[in-house]
């Protein structure tokens, strides 16, 4: 970064300090200055500044100039089509794939390109039918015993081989354990830009670049990102963020069997065993209704109160980080920035204050219900319906009332 990459235009700075507040890295401070129109000038600490541009967005007086070096335009015309990595587990295609196909369809249409799926596995060829039904015009299939279950190196190497041979314009992948382990290896090796956990994808009408929008700082801030000079433009999307493509069995598509050299399937790591999770296997990420508990429950036993309500509603059971950290409930129930992202029809937050990191995991629920003793709890700002009161009184009453109404 040269010293001119970002600078304050002194004549325009009115000393309002909006930039100081906007900077996520505390890199700006106000200093007295005789040169500034109002005597107070924003000064950027270049050692702390990461050139993120939040200050430029915040400044209403065009007093901040962020100049990015224009690169000579590369010829990217050889790259075509929108690809979706079809994640499968034991022959079952993960539903995040259908969400990516749903979104990918719109992107492909905007670009006038084809939507394709990439399917790796063993004895997997027949499954391409399902991908075609969901909108894939072409399915690249690599069917080898070595690919029976996910292993980082061969899966990455096969995907890299496909990308190099067929040059997709866009490559989408689910932000799952498998997806996240795999996709960064691919992006680094093919020298392509990769954006994680996108909540929005669109094609820029002028540049035709993929606009990738994602949250940062626990969802406080949204960033729109592009990869203008590299292909494919790679992005991961979390489960339940986009809408699934509807299946249409009448759709036709092409299956392309791709052959790879032996050495591409080599793996230094090997699986010795797989143990399915014991106990409740309710995957809350799939649930339409979630009843969730936080520190306001006061004691781990009080989760039983929520369990009863969850049972009556056929709901999944969620938890805030505070409850998980206190060992009141296993991590698999944690909703939030470092837990699961959920998008249910109803999210009932009981005794949860509504920290930003928790909201990052559930704020796109259709209906949010908040029950909390603290009328100032931030959760009430996002709740569709709020009740200020004692969770331990209200939830049992809710359970009773729902039993009546649902005839249970």
């Amino acid at each position: 970064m040269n010293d001119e990459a970002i600078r304050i235009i002194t004549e325009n700075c009115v000393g309002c300090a909006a930039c100081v507040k906007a900077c996520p890295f505390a890199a700006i401070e106000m200093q007295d200055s005789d040169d500034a129109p109002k005597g107070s000038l924003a000064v950027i600490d270049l050692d702390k500044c990461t050139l993120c541009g939040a200050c430029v967005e915040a400044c209403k007086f065009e007093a901040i100039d962020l100049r990015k070096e224009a690169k000579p335009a590369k010829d990217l015309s050889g790259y075509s089509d929108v690809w979706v990595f079809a994640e499968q587990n034991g022959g079952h295609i993960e539903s995040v794939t259908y969400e990516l196909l749903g979104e990918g369809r719109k992107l492909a249409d905007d670009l006038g390109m084809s939507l394709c799926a990439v399917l790796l596995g063993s004895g997997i060829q027949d499954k391409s039918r399902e991908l075609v039904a969901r909108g894939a015009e072409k399915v690249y299939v690599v069917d080898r015993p070595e690919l029976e279950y996910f292993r980082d190196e061969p899966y990455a190497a096969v995907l890299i081989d496909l990308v190099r041979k067929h040059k997709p314009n866009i490559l989408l992948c689910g932000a799952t354990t498998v997806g996240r382990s795999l996709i960064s290896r691919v992006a680094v090796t093919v020298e392509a830009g990769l954006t994680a956990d996108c909540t929005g994808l669109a094609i820029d009408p002028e540049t035709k670049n993929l606009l990738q929008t994602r949250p940062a700082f626990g969802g406080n801030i949204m960033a729109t990102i592009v990869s203008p000079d590299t292909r494919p433009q790679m992005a991961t999307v979390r489960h339940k963020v986009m809408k699934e493509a509807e299946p249409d069995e009448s759709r036709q598509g092409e299956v392309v069997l791709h052959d790879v050299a032996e050495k591409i399937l080599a793996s230094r790591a090997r699986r010795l065993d797989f143990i399915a999770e014991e106990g409740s296997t309710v995957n809350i990420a799939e649930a339409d209704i979630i009843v969730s508990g936080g520190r306001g429950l006061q004691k781990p036993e009080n989760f039983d109160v929520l369990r009863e309500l969850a049972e009556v509603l056929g709901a999944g059971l969620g938890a805030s980080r505070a409850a998980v950290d206190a060992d009141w409930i296993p991590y698999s129930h944690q909703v939030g920035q470092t837990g699961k992202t959920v998008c249910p029809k109803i999210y009932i937050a009981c005794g949860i204050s509504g920290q930003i990191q928790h909201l990052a995991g559930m704020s796109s629920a259709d209906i949010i219900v908040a029950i909390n003793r603290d009328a100032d709890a931030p959760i009430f700002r996002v709740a569709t319906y709020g009740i200020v009161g004692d969770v331990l009184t209200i939830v049992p009453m809710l359970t009773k009332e729902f039993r009546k109404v649902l005839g249970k």
Partner: protein
Amino acid sequence: MHFVVCVKQVPDTTDVKIDPETNTLIREGVESIINPFDMYAIEEALRLRDKLGGKVTALSMGPPQAETALREAISLGVDEAVLLSDRAFAGSDTWVTSYTLAAGLKKIGDFDIILFGKQASDGDTAQVGPGIAAHLDLPQITYVRKVEEIDENRIVAERLMETGYEVVEAPLPCILTVVKEINEPRLPSLKGKMAAKKAEIPTWGAADIEAEPDKLGLDGSPTKVIRIFTPPPREGGEMLEGEPDETVPKLVEKLKDVVLGAR
């Protein structure tokens, strides 16, 4: 054996609040901390060293103030630390960060295991660990919740997945990213704090790690942030007023159609 832990200094986002009037981040008084997931990586490295002998080195890429994070790592028991810092690194995306850290790791050289936390709490991408594995052409085990066996040649670890866990064996050297289930991080000791005060932490710049200049910083990053904005706040909702025997039936009335439709 030589264990290297990559750590990142991040703002303490549990303290980050939104100013309700301007809808922007309130950054005053927000501390910088070691990325919470990295604490588990540091602890695991220390445990492996305590079990097998050797040393733990902490490596971080960041502005000069990131040195405080490395001193904190030393206060926990880490033996040595190195800071990668250079104005040329500013504005790096994950591709370039992986490249830069990989160059630093190459200079460190004789590592057996490189450990990472699962993701950083500011960027949340989880990309750098596997990215470095690609740059250095190393095998990786991600989402490690337990190390079952380890010796100089191989490691057997449990990898946490959505529906259970996998037991994976990998040869060394390799890369691990860890999740919180793996351990309980220790607190700094008095001895550690004194060592942290006295420790000499070298700073390596772009030239020291022989990095190619066009693969650094903002200009070297394939991804570019073109806009930052605060998301529109969710539409205000309705507070249900009254005693529980009034509010509860009201709430159930509002929800019952959706509940019936969902089942």
